[in-house]
C-alpha cells in the first residue's frame, strides 16, 4: 500500500479516534482514507475549512482526552504552528504528520526535506519542541505512527511524523499486526465535563512570570527525559567506515544504495540514519566522531540537519554536506560520486 495509507492504518491501530485534516498534495490520501476508516472505527472525521481550523479541532479533542491527529504538507504545516505551540504549552498529546514537499512558499509537490528546522527546532513561538520521528518506508509510516501516539501520551506533548512526498506516495508491502497493544494512560486532567470531580481547565496562559517559568521548566524537564529514553537511529556498516553518510527518510534509502556503490568502488562508507529527529541521536554521533569517522550529511534541503550533526560532533570531526533543492532527488550514483570525491 501507499505510505499515506499506512500512516492512516497506523493511527487507527493506535486507537486514534479523531482526525481533522485538509487536502494538500502529496498527502491527500490521508484525509481520503481517514474519511472512510475513521468513522468505520467509531471515530470522528472532519474535513476542516483550513489547516488552522484542523489543528484547533485537534486541540479541542486532545483537551477532551481523545487521541487526535491531523496531517498536512509543508505550507499547511506552517499554518499549524500557532496551534502546535498552544498544544505544547497546554501540555496536550496529539500527532501531526508532515508529508514534505518543495518550498518555500507554495513551492511544488515534489519531495523535499526543507521543514527539518520547522519540525525540530519548533516552528511555532515559545520554548517547546515536537517529538519528531522520520519514517523511511511504508512499514515505518505505520509503525512510527503507532509509536508517535505512545510518545505523545507519555510526554503530553505533540509528536510529528516527518515524511516526504516519496515515502507518502510510494507503494510497498506492509505487515499489519493483528492487534496493537496500546497502553493509553488515564487522563484525569482532561476537560470532558466535571462529573464527580473539581473542574479542569486546559490553558497555556500563565500571567504570573513565576508561574510561567515553572511551567516552562516542567516542559523542559520532559524534553530532558525524552533525550534520555527516546533516541532512535539505525546504522549500516559504520564500524569500519571512514566516511559515514547521515540522512533520514527517503534520502537515507538513497544513501544506503550510494553506500553500497561506494563500497564497490573501494571506499569504506557507512550510513547513520536518525529515526528520532527530536530527540536527536547526538551522543552516538559524538561517539562515531571520537572513533575517527568523517561525516557527509545528505538532505533534500540547503542544509538543516547538518547543523545538528555539527553540534553533535562539536568540532571533533569533519562534516560535509550535499543537498539538492526544489524537489530534485539525487540518484545513488550522484551521491556516490560526491563521496568518492
Amino acid at each position, binding site marked *: 500500500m501507499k505510505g499515506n495509507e499506512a500512516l492512516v492504518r497506523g493511527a487507527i491501530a493506535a486507537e486514534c*479516534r*479523531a482526525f*481533522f485534516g485538509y487536502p494538500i498534495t502529496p498527502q491527500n490520501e490521508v484525509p481520503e482514507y481517514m474519511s472512510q476508516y475513521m468513522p468505520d472505527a467509531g471515530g*470522528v472525521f*472532519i474535513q*476542516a*475549512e*483550513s489547516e*488552522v*481550523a*484542523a489543528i*484547533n*479541532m*485537534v*486541540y*479541542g*479533542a*486532545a*483537551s*477532551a482526552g*481523545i487521541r*487526535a491527529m491531523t496531517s498536512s504538507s509543508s505550507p499547511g504545516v506552517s499554518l499549524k504552528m*500557532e*496551534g502546535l505551540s*498552544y498544544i505544547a504549552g*497546554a501540555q496536550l498529546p496529539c500527532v501531526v504528520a508532515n508529508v514534505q514537499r518543495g518550498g518555500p512558499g507554495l513551492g511544488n509537490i515534489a519531495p523535499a526535506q526543507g521543514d527539518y528546522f520547522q519540525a525540530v527546532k519548533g516552528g511555532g513561538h515559545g520554548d517547546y519542541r515536537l517529538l519528531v520521528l522520520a519514517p523511511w518506508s511504508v512499514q515505518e509510516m505505520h509503525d512510527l505512527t503507532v509509536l508517535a501516539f505512545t510518545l505523545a501520551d507519555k510526554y503530553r506533548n505533540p509528536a510529528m511524523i516527518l515524511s516526504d512526498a516519496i515515502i507518502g506516495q510510494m507503494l510497498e508491502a506492509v505487515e499489519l499486526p493483528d492487534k496493537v497493544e496500546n497502553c493509553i494512560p488515564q487522563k484525569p486532567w482532561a*476537560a*470532558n*465535563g*466535571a*462529573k*464527580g470531580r473539581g*473542574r*479542569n*481547565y*486546559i*490553558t*497555556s*496562559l500563565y500571567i504570573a512570570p513565576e508561574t510561567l517559568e515553572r511551567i516552562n521548566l516542567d516542559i523542559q524537564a520532559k524534553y530532558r527525559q525524552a533525550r534520555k529514553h527516546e533516541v532512535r537511529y539505525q546504522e549500516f556498516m559504520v564500524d569500519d567506515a571512514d566516511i559515514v553518510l547521515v540522512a533520514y527518510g527517503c534520502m537515507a534509502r538513497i544513501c544506503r544504495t550510494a553506500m553500497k556503490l561506494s563500497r564497490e568502488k573501494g571506499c569504506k562508507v557507512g550510513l547513520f540514519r536518525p529515526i528520532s529527529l527530536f530527540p536527536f541521536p547526538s551522543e552516538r554521533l559524538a561517539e562515531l566522531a571520537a572513533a575517527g569517522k568523517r561525516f557527509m550529511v545528505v538532505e533534500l534541503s540547503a542544509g538543516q540537519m547538518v547543523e545538528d550533526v555539527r553540534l553533535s560532533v562539536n568540532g571533533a570531526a569533519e562534516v560535509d554536506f550535499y543537498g539538492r533543492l526544489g524537489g530534485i532527488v539525487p540518484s545513488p550514483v550522484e551521491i556516490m560520486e560526491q563521496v568518492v570525491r
Partner: protein
Amino acid sequence: MKKIFGRPKALTDVTMAYCPGCTHGIAHRLVTEIIDELDVMDHTVAVCPVGCAVFMYEYLECDTIEAAHGRAPAVATGVKRCLPDRVVFTYQGDGDLAAIGTAEIVHAATRGENISVIFINNAIYGMTGGQMAPTTMLGQHSTTTPGGRQQARAGYPIKVCELLSSLEGVTYAARVSLTSPANVVKARKSIKTAFQRQIDRKGLSIVEILSTCPTNWGMTPLDAMAHIDKNMSLYYPLGVFKE
C-alpha cells in the same frame, strides 16, 4: 424565609476583574444561571476566547479550555464531535469572532455544529486598549481610527447575526442587550434557547450581546448603557434573526 436569589452554582465565588460598568459580569451571570437551570454543569465544557474574557475560567465552575484567538468554534467542534453528549459553548468577543475567527465561526455554523456561541459585541478591542473592532461603528473613535472610523480606510462594520443567519446550519441567531431589566430578561431567554437547541441537536446557536466598554469608549457606565440604547441598537437592531 424563602431564598429567591443567589449566586449561580456554576459561577465561582471570585471577585471579577472586569472594569466598572462592563457587561461581561452580567453576561457571565446569565450563562451560569442557565447552566444551573438546565442542570448541566457537570457535563459542560466552556471554550474561552482571547480578549478581556480570557480569564473567564476563573469565574466558571465547569471544565474550560482556553482557545487561541478566534479558534474557539474549531476547538468546540473538536470537543463536541468527540463527546456529543456534553454541553459545549464558546464565549467570544468581536475581534475573536468577527475578525481573526471569521472562518472558524462561519464553518462551524455551516457544518451545523451543535454548540452554543455567546458573542460579546462591544464594538471595540477592550483587552488591548481600544483599537478598532470589525463591529466598530462608522465615525466611532478608536486608537487605530483616530478621528473616527472612515469607510474608505477601514470598511463597514459587520452585522454578525444577519451574516450567520444566512447559513443553514444555524438554528438560532438573536441579538440582545443588557441595558435594562427587561432587556436582561430577554437576553436570558435567548441564552436559554441557545443552550436548549444544542441539547435538542438542532445545530449552531448564537446570541449576540451588545455590550459596554466604558473604559475604551471613554464614557461613564451609565452613558455607555445609554449609548447602546440610543446608538448601537440602531445599527445593530435587537431581535431574533433566525429561529
